[in-house]
């Protein structure tokens, strides 16, 4: 069956792979070989659309447990890079590896999602008629075929995991509210929580604070800081204050015209004359 919808279709992989709650369903994500300390390698990735190079020899690696911010002006190739990592777009040239051993250019979106890469899109999509609790329950890593789902019963370990995630995304007070009644910011957090319930190794977040109030932006920053170390995170963002808040001495990558323009701490990047010219200085 063709998976034609972007980012859709962890389905097939999960159907094929995730057996019992703790049995072979977990083998694949844990099969990511990160012995060299990196979770993602992109090497010489080029994507050209009718001659226009959206990505031009992009080379980038993300360490295990790292929180990497990626900034760049419009058209720098940020979203195309996410598309390549999640299998939505195939690179014209170059290699993309998840850990040492998983070649992302050979897998479809479903297999990549199942391998342990979660992606959050810009617009929050949660199940509005379901409560916050039910949203997390549905997202939870489990056997997601029809029959096991029909007879699924929540055990206490699973409840604990939901409670844990609730605390992390700070929606403990909203457990029984329908998600449709949450504020925009809360929906974004809930969606991040849903991604976490899937137990991904690498989380890709596309503009997680778009449309948020200042207070919400700050809380999102704290949330991402909480996740630092537990998951590897790639955050694509426009909001420079937010990037400064979460970068926290970590690496920031500046993309420009499809390749890496500069890389370093926020302070180094902000001081780079080329960066100032193409992006920050404007």
């Amino acid at each position, binding site marked *: 069956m063709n998976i034609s919808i972007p980012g859709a279709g962890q389905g097939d992989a999960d159907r094929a792979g995730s057996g019992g709650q703790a049995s072979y369903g977990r083998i694949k994500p844990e099969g990511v070989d990160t012995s060299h300390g990196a979770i993602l390698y992109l090497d010489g990735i080029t994507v050209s659309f009718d001659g226009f190079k959206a990505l031009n020899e992009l080379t980038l690696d993300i360490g295990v447990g790292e929180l990497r911010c990626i900034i760049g002006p419009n058209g720098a190739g940020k979203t195309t890079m996410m598309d390549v990592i999640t299998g939505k777009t195939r690179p014209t040239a170059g290699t993309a590896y998840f850990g040492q051993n998983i070649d992302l250019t050979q897998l479809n979106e479903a297999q990549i999602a199942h391998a342990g890469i979660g992606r959050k899109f810009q617009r929050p*999509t949660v199940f509005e008629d379901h409560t916050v609790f039910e949203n997390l329950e549905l997202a939870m890593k489990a056997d997601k075929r029809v029959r096991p789902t029909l007879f699924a019963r929540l055990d206490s370990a699973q409840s604990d995991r939901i409670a844990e995630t*609730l605390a992390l995304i700070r929606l403990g007070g909203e457990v029984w509210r*329908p998600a449709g009644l949450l504020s925009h910011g809360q929906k974004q957090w809930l969606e991040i929580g849903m991604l976490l319930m899937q137990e991904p190794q690498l989380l890709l977040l596309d503009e997680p604070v778009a449309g948020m109030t200042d207070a919400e932006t700050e809380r999102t920053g704290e949330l991402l800081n909480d996740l630092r170390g537990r998951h590897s995170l790639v955050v694509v963002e426009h909001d420079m204050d937010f990037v400064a808040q979460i970068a926290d001495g970590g690496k920031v990558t500046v993309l420009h015209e499809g390749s890496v323009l500069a890389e370093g701490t926020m302070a180094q990047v902000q001081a780079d004359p080329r960066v100032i010219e193409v992006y920050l200085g404007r």
Partner: protein
Amino acid sequence: MNRTLNATLGAPPAAALPALARRPLFSPRAWLALAAACALLALLPLLNLAFAPGHALHVSSYAVALLGKFMCYALAALALDLVWGYAGILSLGHGLFFALGGYAHGMYLMRAIGRDGVYQSDLPDFMVFLNWKEYPWYWAFTEHFWYAALLVVLVPGVLAFVFGYFAFRSRIKGVYFSIITQALTFAAMLLFFRNDTGFGGNNGFTDFKRILGFPITAPGTRAALYWLTLAALGGFLVLARAVTQSKLGRVLTAVRDAENRVRFLGYEPLGFKLFVWTLSAVMCGVAGALYVPQVGIINPGEMSPENSIEMVIWVATGGRGTLVGPIIGAGAVNGLKTWFTSVFPEFWLYALGLIFVLVTLFLPQGIVGLARRLYARFAEGGR
């Protein structure tokens, strides 16, 4: 459900979560109401049998037969609510599954007539009329009740499964899906209207004499059929509730609200839709099978698009996505229809249209939604 959870639990701290692992199917009060309604309905045929006509407690045979028929409609409405209310799949062709269940049972009833037909042949009258000498192959074994009962489940079930597989796999949704179901039932109606199809053409099946050896028009048989229908309705209501309360039920509503997100979470919507769609078709087939011996006829008119659309109106009137609502809606609309068609027969379709418009405008949640609103207001006022 969410509302009751909120009411009973307030906003419990995260530590209270494990208590929710098992939720009761219905609240104790709902169980009580359900049992009371069943007991009351079950009592009516008894009053019909026990008291002579003219006695103050006598319930007319007409009323019992009418309610038996309404309960079949209610079961069909319940089936439709399962797919429309919960999975967001609007079928405008559920009359087809209802009719197929009816025809499957009708084949047995036709053979049970034996040589008591007008032509006193082993074949049904319509086959004699067509000058057929023997039963077509697809009538094989239909003299056995158990086989016909199997067909009642299998024919609508397999058709729904195959049709649903291709439709859902091609990601046909919304109004396109509705139109295709409508076309399907219309095509089937044209097929069944043909005499050569072997199902009695436009007259269908009628003049049944007996079922499992019992005379079909005897008050005792009628009462038994009535109770069977009641049991089926109650049983399927509990089953439907169990399905919608399960995690699978929550996946279905998630598919209804944001199908792509469901895919992204790792569920394949095809299997889930197919499950509920097939279950719904089987329930509808059973409703049709119970309907035929009680009304004494099945003909291709049951497959007409209007019938399927009426089912949608029952569900909408009672309250979509509530399970109990469609049962109430089927009773209310058909009760009104019975009265209306005896007083102003030619205006019924206008009245039906008006009901649909009014419900859509003023009662988007149907009768059940209205009751909930009134109850909430009452509870607030009493505080």
